[in-house]
């Protein structure tokens, strides 16, 4: 089924609004009725909405595990209002950024709302193609992919499917915007954590926990699962602390190899997701996915070296 060009834009506006509202509020009665229009999600929707349960799910996914803020993924060069995004943010007509929003401008819902706004202006006859392209290429796509992939890997069917749809929509949208190459990578350069002789478990954990360093998102839930499958304790605290505990107790209980293997498997799974993005033959997408893939490869190399070092001691 093809929809006409204007309707296509309107559909996109509605889709971005839907995603923005969902990632901000979770499944509310209003959103439930809106999602009911989406055929691909029908089977996953509850017959009767238990707001408490869905509130808890929302908190579990976005409050405890997958952080929905740009700053978690990018450094200050990539943040909204930074050099790379200011021009898009204050695009045609001095567009409001987050005018009066309750959420931070760095929240995914605020940023999807910006895309929606630019699309609305386009519908009203303004030429916002360049602004859309710049906003997506220089800013949003850099972190929307790892955010969505992390949600997809989370064990919640509904959130997984919504995140998957959002990736599809944004790729489709970007493909329609034509050629263009993203500007500078809005993330700090990777550091070879093992090059520092004094680096210990905590530094390695630090590297793995920072998304832009490891290239992957290790959520609390994922760390917990790894610990459980390796049958070692991982303790409590923040993710760095949990990872430190995991690596340290893996050493104590002779589960290091198994644990490193689990992390490596995660890296490969993330690489696969980026490979799919690269298949769409859109230069900007390819560029972004390639950069993330390179970072994941570096993490794999670190793991490999750790395994090798471990072998030397065994």
């Amino acid at each position, binding site marked *: 089924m093809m929809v006409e060009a204007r309707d296509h834009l309107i559909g996109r506006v509605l889709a971005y609004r839907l995603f923005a509202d969902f990632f901000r509020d979770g499944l509310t009665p209003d959103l439930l009725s809106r999602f009911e229009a989406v055929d*691909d999600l029908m089977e996953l929707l509850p017959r009767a909405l238990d707001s408490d349960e869905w509130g808890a799910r929302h908190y579990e996914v976005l409050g405890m595990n997958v952080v929905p803020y740009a700053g978690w993924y990018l450094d200050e060069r990539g943040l909204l209002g930074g050099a790379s995004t200011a021009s898009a943010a204050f695009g045609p007509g001095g567009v409001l950024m987050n005018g009066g929003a309750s959420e931070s401008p760095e929240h995914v819902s605020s940023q999807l709302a910006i895309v929606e706004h630019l699309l609305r202006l386009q519908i009203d006859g303004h030429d916002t193609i360049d602004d859309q392209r710049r906003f997506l290429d220089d800013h949003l796509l850099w972190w929307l992919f790892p955010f969505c992939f992390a949600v997809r890997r989370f064990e919640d069917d509904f959130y997984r499917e919504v995140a998957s749809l959002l990736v599809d929509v944004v790729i489709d949208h970007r493909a329609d915007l034509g050629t263009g190459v993203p500007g500078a990578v809005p993330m700090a350069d990777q550091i070879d954590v093992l090059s520092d002789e004094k680096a210990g478990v905590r530094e390695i954990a630090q590297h793995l926990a920072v998304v832009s360093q490891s290239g992957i998102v290790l959520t609390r839930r994922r760390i917990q699962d790894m610990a459980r499958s390796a049958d070692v304790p991982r303790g409590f605290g923040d993710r760095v602390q949990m990872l430190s505990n995991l690596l340290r107790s893996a050493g104590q209980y002779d589960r290091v190899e198994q644990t490193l293997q689990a992390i490596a498997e995660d890296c490969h799974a993330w690489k696969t997701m980026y490979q799919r993005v690269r298949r769409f033959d859109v230069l900007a997408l390819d560029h972004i996915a390639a950069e993330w893939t390179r970072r994941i490869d570096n993490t794999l190399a670190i793991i490999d070296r750790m395994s090798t070092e471990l072998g030397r001691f065994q």
Partner: protein
Amino acid sequence: MGSKDNRVERLLASLLRSPYRFQDKVAEDSDFGLPKYSESELVPEPIDLTTVVHPDGRMSQYPPPDRWDDWVEWDGRQWPRKVARRYMLVPTVCFNCESACGLLAYMDRETLDIKKFEGNPAHPGSRGRNCAKGPATLNQIYDPERILYPLKRVGKRGEGKWKRVSWDEALDDIAAKMRESRQRRRDGIMYHVGRPGEDGFTNRCIQAWGVDGHNSHTNICSAGARAGYAFWTGSDRPSPDHASARVILLISSHLETGHYFNPHAQRIMEGMEKGAKLITMDPRLSNTASKSDVWLPTWPGSETVVLLAIANHLIQNDLYDRSFVRRWVNWRESLDHFRRHASLAPGIAVDGEDFDAFDRLLKKLYADFTFKRAAEESQVPVDRIRKTADYIADCDGRLATHTWRSASIGNLGGWQVSRCLYFLNVLTASVGTRGGTAMNDWNKFVPKPFDSPPPFDAWNELHLPVEWPLAFYEMSFLLPHFLEEGRGDIDVYFTRVYNPMWINPDGFMWLKALKDEQKMKLHVALTPTWNESAWFADYVLPMGHSGERHDLMSQETHSGQWIAFRQPVRRVALERLGKEVEFTYEANPGQVWEENEFWIQLSARMDPDGSLGVRKHFESPYRPGEIIKVDEYYRWIFENSVPGLPEKAAEEGLDSLAYMRKYGAFEITAENFAPYEAPAAEWDRKDGRGRLEHKGNVVGVLADDDPRVGFKTPSRKLEFVSPTLHDWGWTELEYVVPWTLKSHVHPDEINRAAGEMLLLPTFRLPTLIHTRSANAKWLYELSHKNPIWMHPEDARRLQVDSGELVRVETEIGYFVDKVWVTEGIKPGVIAMSHHLGRWRLREDAGVNRGASNLVDLQEQENGSYGLRVVHGAAAWESFDPDTSRIWWKDVGVHQNLTHGVHPDPISGAHCWLQKATSVRKADPGDRHGDVYVDTAKSMEVYRRWVGLARPATENSPDGTRRPYWLKRPLKPVRAAYQLPTK
């Protein structure tokens, strides 16, 4: 890729099919949306701001008035960008509560959209300050749910089917029906007003129509207090001078929290900073009570016994001001009354004719009102009452007291609360003094218009039936019951910024009436927003908020007098820019109009050839024979009726209208103390009661042999004994003098052991105002639910905790609400705020979705009704992104539906306090917001209360329907007062 494409196509196509397509909304209201602001290349200049130093020492700064036409400032919301905005500042007046605070609209000079409302420093009442409701006017103006065009019903009443019509079409149709009615009868047109928010414009129109058509909301609001004040002073509303008081005594914080929150609160703070003691009588620990020096959590209905115990303390210990009482109280008349009616107070004989005899009479009469008795009846520690009495005894003529609704409107006999309260002002000589309590007509200034139509010759039995000859005023909350009884019908019924079905008790009786096309033949709702009653109207006509309409207002905010001019700010801005505007709807969003121009046009069309005698009252004083323009109406007033204004305007080289358009307010006098002491002007005769007459009219009275203007009572004195009450059949002691009356919720009437409780359903939240504030998103985010306040003792007994549901049964039905357990309410009493529980019948239309429940309305053939909440507030898509951020769901429970009507037999007030016949944990099938009412029981309760009345037909002393001296909003000719001869 193909798979992805299909998924995206499917997603977009399915969303396009959904009812959430935004473009439909955009197409519908294409010229209305979020305000737009332009960027200015100008840079704000450093200039001296207008500094207002408030009496409490704080300072506020404002742009100086000479720069209001062209003001540049940075837009703080754009930080860290530096964006300058260029504004035109236009003063107007808030339209939320009635205190008429000044606002200053900041309008973008290019787009003429309003950026914000701030305080108007030139306004003498509000002095540049506002409460939350003033700035929230911005929400109301840019409310995505507002009604933008005149609508006419096309389906059945209440079906929710409307078509957009032009103003011409609406005016012609309504005017024709009014003309037809007026030709047949003088009681077929009814204008039912909530809070007027203006002084006299519409009343003049009704008078010009020649019909008894004014129906107010007063008897669900202030009737009790008004009656008590009127029987003392002849005026019916108090005006305390809080700022200069030594003692401030409030019967609840109702007024200070609600109507007069901003002007009174700032003056109470001012008084307290100067050392005034604040005393609050309230069963609920309100914000005001918590800040008081003494909180008296009285059992509702026991206020009078506490007040009389304090009075007794003053009397027995000779702490009252004898010289004032001797000079201004009708003590001679009172002694004479007791002498002639010895049975009034058995065992208490009048033993002389001088003031000492009156003093002795007072001492004997009130001797039983001891602190101990007051403590027992009110369930308040005796020390607190004694401390209160000590403070009052030390007030030195500066006792500021206030009651408006609360206990006065809550209880059977509540009118005695204001009478007993003002007794303390009389005893301490705090009557209209600095720091005392004046009457509103000494401080409120209502100028005369260019033309005053003569009184009408009619009496509408649906307004003031014979049962309530002393009512303040029309018995409007009983209208559906009167219609149900077949007492009459209405040809054209206007509801004006009023929502009778929601706000009145027994709302399902209103529903029946509003749906009955035989009894209410045409219902025209003039309203800025949807409300529950407008849903059942035939026409819904959009009227402006503050900043979109003309009105003239004055209120008794303090001891001075002022007027303030509400203006349609966009219209004023357009005119300043040289653009001509014929009607205000040309400048407002959509076709939102203002009532004043609407009434002028409607009245002219009602009488196109002048044969009804209506048209002549709407002809311009400046252009003979032509219909008046709204500018001309106010121009004439400002030029001719406001002392000092033309001179003040001339000092600035302006005419009077231009001055008011520029400043929005004018102070007539800064102080007006004790005007009753003004010398009586010309008089030619003194009657036997010491009253002074001039050409047959009473113009004053002798006060200690001094000829003075006096009060508005028949005796021109403060009436301790009220001959009026006696003459109209209320002869017992407890009616004729300040006394206690047993409330319908007296502890004897509430069997707490059997689980009965007292429901206090009237307390206010300072951030909301009845149904007007539902479309102000900022206000609703602050306050949106009304849980039941319950004391921990009661919660333990009922085994409920905060957040759990309870079912509250009343005389006519029940409701289900969440409970909030708190020590801030008296044991045995439950309380609910009265602003909340709005509802709508359709998902996508009706009352604002962020402020209302979607409900299922069930009507049974046997007259029972039910409401069940489908869901609460929810986010929705609109041009305003905030509507998608609605995070709250609980918007309260509509408790008023379950209240039986309680007309006080004297004041006519609806006695709001309810006996909860059962309060218990909700049943498993109960849901939050459930309401059930049996209207057969409604009528039983109504008839029981009607039975308390003493009708004029049996008690009138002179064959009239009502004492002529008592106020009515619009008085008919004297002949219309005669009872039917039958």
